[in-house]
């Protein structure tokens, strides 16, 4: 009989049964809902003790290395901060011309001009100098890792796993152990950036080398190149385009991390400027400083990105002319130039922004806060603590009663029955599951239900190995005693991903259908993807103050981009032949979309969802700065208190959640593309 039902249906039915059992037995056996504290291990303390012990040995070496690094950092700082600003601007403009012609040159000129008049020149240059030292370190470490992974295939799997972990462990979690090891100071930010920025280049070096055509590789060997000559004279240059893509990603990651590292304080960089002004609620200045970050990000991204493209050569003469002009104007005006810090032409503007903002808040404050409260009461709270707790006379105007619970489940059961009757048994079961989860709230879900649910998803997506993976990692989090913040993280990121999936999916669909929409959406997406995560906090904080709602908005605005891009990409990449075949079979536009393009696009859309989930998790930690209560907050707290154990444990928990989500969605994507006979 069992083979009448699909694996998904069977898994859903089992999960539903266990969930119902937990619900019924909860009054008798409270341990079925909440994992007993007595059965958790003091993992944070153990980890803390172990790391502290280990750090005792490593400290001298680490501090020595840190001191060594302080030199190049100091030099870079000296050069960038103390160089006369016309020279710096001139060099960047010339570079812009060389890489991208007059548009990029003008962009560099205007962008750095804005930085100068914003009054944030010196902090900006501090940030750049940190990036300038972190990037070569990251490139070296990542490049060597990529080459090793290529040369020693046996190491590829472990290296891939290491890179996955490095990219899913939240940024703040790096900082706590580094603080312990190195003490306070900019070197911590530098090393954290190098670690965080190394994976992209490692991945791209490996990918590029793997993609070198076998004929080219064999030709090098047959021409008598030894393995080193083969690698450096043929394979690496052949892979150069892919490697430049990696360089671009590494630079952007380093910039993003350098700015985030400002939370440990201690150096006067642009991230610190944003943080400080945000704390003082001086949003005019936050905006300007944020804009400086955006300008850096866009300029650096476009310049380094152009390295990966075939670009027309731009006249060398012009490059030299711009440089000469910069030198001449520096020399000529040396005496009259004010110090860069004194050029704060925007003081008036920031005051004006503050003023306008103040009036805006007075005018629209009630509206904004009513939006916020409505969403909190009717969406976020029920999801978080369940309808039975969220519905109270104070919020919804009436209390939740036992009768309502019964009615709720009866309606859900009826709807599910109708769905099942019509042949959508799985949909009916999922509806029942959703009804139960909404009634209970994500943070009140019984642990057997969560673990089994994850396992069931894993089993459907990728068989028993993935199922074991999806059960064991969350179980570790539970035993470590971080279950509650983990569920809160799950609730926040889950809600954000849901919103992103719906909104991003729709925008992606519209962008696929209408080139006009895409021409508007595309630059917005480009910009959103270039801006360092940190900057997203400024506007939401300005409009909605501290709290979960602001955090959610920040997460969504950062994480929605991949969903939009992949949805559109999946939809527009349907092979022309399939579309022609469908049209000649008489499909209209709607049928074409639902019957041909959507099914074909699902693997790509699923990959977009996967990216969105990972983005949401990484933003979750940054959002801790504006008031969340989840794992991210634990990591942030640990950073403030220097609690290495908590920092690492919470960071690991976060990474485990992200890894499980990543593997599950990838499993579904892989399964779907195998069904379609595609190679993703």
């Amino acid at each position: 009989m069992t083979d009448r039902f699909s694996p998904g249906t069977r898994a859903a039915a089992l999960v539903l049964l266990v969930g119902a059992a937990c619900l019924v037995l909860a009054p008798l056996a409270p341990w079925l809902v909440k994992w007993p504290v007595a059965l958790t291990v003091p993992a944070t303390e153990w980890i803390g003790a172990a790391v502290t012990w280990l750090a005792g040995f490593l400290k001298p070496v680490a501090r020595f290395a840190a001191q060594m690094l302080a030199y190049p950092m100091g030099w870079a700082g000296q050069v960038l901060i103390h160089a006369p600003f016309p020279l710096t601007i001139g060099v960047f403009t010339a570079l812009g011309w060389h890489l991208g012609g007059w548009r990029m040159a003008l962009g560099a000129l205007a962008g750095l001009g804005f930085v100068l008049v914003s009054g944030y020149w010196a902090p900006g240059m501090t940030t750049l100098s940190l990036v300038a030292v972190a990037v070569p370190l990251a490139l070296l470490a990542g490049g060597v890792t990529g080459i090793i992974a290529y040369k020693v295939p046996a190491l590829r799997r472990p290296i891939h796993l290491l890179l996955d972990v490095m990219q899913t462990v939240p940024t703040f979690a790096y900082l706590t152990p580094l603080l312990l090891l190195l003490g306070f100071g900019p070197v911590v930010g530098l090393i954290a950036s190098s670690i965080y920025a190394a994976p992209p280049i490692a991945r791209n070096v490996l990918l590029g080398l793997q993609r070198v055509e076998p004929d080219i590789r064999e030709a090098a060997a047959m021409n008598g190149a030894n393995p080193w000559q083969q690698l450096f004279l043929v394979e690496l240059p052949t892979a150069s385009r892919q490697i430049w893509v990696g360089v671009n990603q590494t630079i952007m990651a380093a910039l993003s991390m350098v700015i985030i590292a400002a939370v440990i304080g201690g150096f006067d960089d642009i991230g610190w400027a944003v943080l400080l002004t945000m704390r003082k609620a001086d949003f005019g200045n936050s905006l300007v400083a944020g804009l400086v970050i955006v300008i850096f990000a866009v300029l650096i991204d476009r310049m380094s990105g152009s390295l990966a493209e075939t670009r027309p050569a731009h006249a060398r003469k012009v490059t030299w002319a711009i440089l000469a002009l910069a030198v001449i104007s520096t020399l000529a005006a040396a005496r009259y130039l004010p110090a860069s810090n004194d050029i704060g032409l925007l003081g008036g503007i920031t005051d004006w922004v503050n003023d306008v903002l103040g009036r805006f808040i007075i005018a629209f404050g009630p509206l904004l806060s009513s939006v916020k409260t409505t969403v909190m009461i009717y969406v976020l709270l029920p999801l978080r603590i369940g309808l039975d707790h969220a519905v109270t006379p104070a919020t919804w105007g009436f209390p939740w009663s036992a009768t309502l619970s019964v009615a709720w489940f009866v309606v859900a059961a009826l709807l599910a029955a109708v769905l099942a009757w019509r042949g959508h048994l799985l949909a009916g079961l999922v509806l029942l599951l959703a009804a139960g989860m909404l009634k209970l709230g994500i943070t009140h879900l019984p642990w057997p239900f969560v673990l089994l649910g994850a396992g069931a998803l894993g089993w459907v997506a990728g068989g028993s190995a993935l199922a074991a993976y999806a059960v064991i990692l969350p179980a570790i989090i539970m035993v470590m005693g971080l279950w509650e913040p983990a569920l809160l993280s799950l609730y926040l990121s889950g809600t954000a991903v849901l919103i992103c999936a719906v909104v991003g999916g729709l925008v992606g669909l519209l962008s696929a259908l209408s080139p006009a929409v895409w021409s508007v959406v595309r630059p917005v997406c480009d910009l959103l993807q270039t801006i360092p995560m940190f900057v997203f906090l400024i506007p939401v904080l300005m409009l909605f103050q501290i709290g979960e709602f602001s955090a959610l908005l920040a997460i969504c605005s950062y994480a929605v981009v991949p969903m939009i891009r992949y949805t559109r990409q999946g939809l527009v990449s349907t092979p022309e032949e399939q579309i022609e075949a469908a049209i000649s079979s008489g499909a209209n536009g709607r049928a074409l979309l639902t019957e041909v393009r959507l099914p074909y696009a699902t693997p790509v859309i699923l990959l977009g969802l996967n990216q969105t989930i990972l983005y949401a998790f990484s933003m979750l930690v940054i959002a801790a700065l504006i008031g969340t209560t989840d794992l991210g907050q634990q990591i942030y707290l640990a950073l403030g208190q220097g609690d290495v154990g908590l920092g690492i444990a919470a960071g690991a928990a976060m990474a485990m959640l992200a890894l499980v989500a990543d593997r599950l969605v990838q499993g579904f994507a892989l399964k779907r593309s195998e069904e379609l006979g595609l190679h993703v």
Partner: protein
Amino acid sequence: MAVNPSAPPAISCKGVWQVFGVNPKKNLDRAWQDTGGNVRETALLLRQHGLIPAVQDVTFDIREGEVFVIMGLSGSGKSTLIRTISRLIEGTAGEIRIGGEDILAADAKRLLALRRDKLGMVFQHFGLFPHMTILDNVAFPLKMQGMATGPRRARAAEVLELVGLKGRETARPHQLSGGQRQRVGIARSLAVNPDLWFLDEPFSALDPLIRRQLQDEFLAIQADLGKTAVFITHDIAEALKIADRIAIMRDGIVVQIGTPDDIILNPVDDYVREFTRDVPKGRHAHVETIMTCPDPLPAMPDDPKLSADMTIDSALAACMALYQPVPVWGRDGQMAGVVSPSALAGALKAET
């Protein structure tokens, strides 16, 4: 096509195996012993254990100055075989000698030296280095030899001229057409003036017209340089056109080795026959393959001046109205043999 049969073989393969999978050497040895040295059964046993015997017990000698074509369908093991001979992949078992030297025993240093001085190879998808100019591509093997910049550029330019690409030295590979790219590939493989010339389906990726043109140029260059060439193809017409001898491979086994005439006129099995089915035999087979030397000589009233290296088609055209046996003359002007017009016609009889 000056082949000297008495010279030692340029390449000699003995019992060469190439098995892919887990622990190929051990598994091959065991299967070989278990089956008492039966090739077919060994291969079968290996397949049952999940291994892939891509090349099975291949034995042949390639003579100095000979164009030796290895022909087969895709998956027949021909590309694997040429890579085993050039040691781009390590053979599982057997003996491969190049100029008498056991190259499976050569260490990395010796192999490098061999490749730098003695071997040249042309690839199906050209294998040109995208980041170098055409000239630098051709000069690359010379650079590996350690030749100074000036001389190696001069030599590269010289070889480029040989393949008709003079004037394109500073172009990049992506700026050339497929045919031009393969000329660069050929030029590069000849830059060090190698003794052995490996060509792995060099013309398969090209359009038919360009392909024929390059085949002709290959023949012209080969007539000039007289290299020992190992040429891989899946195209029987190409094989017949350029080969001195052809080895036909099927599922990892060499099923027949012979001259083009042999292959056409005496296919060993249905597989080979199937290959040659659509080949116009009269245009590819020569009189010498069907002439006889009877003793005593029969009466030969007519002499249409047949020569031994005439194709059967042209020989038939010359004795359309004749019925008696006629003499066949060798290149040296001596009588080489006798052929009767009916034998000529009989050779053309379609295989069924």
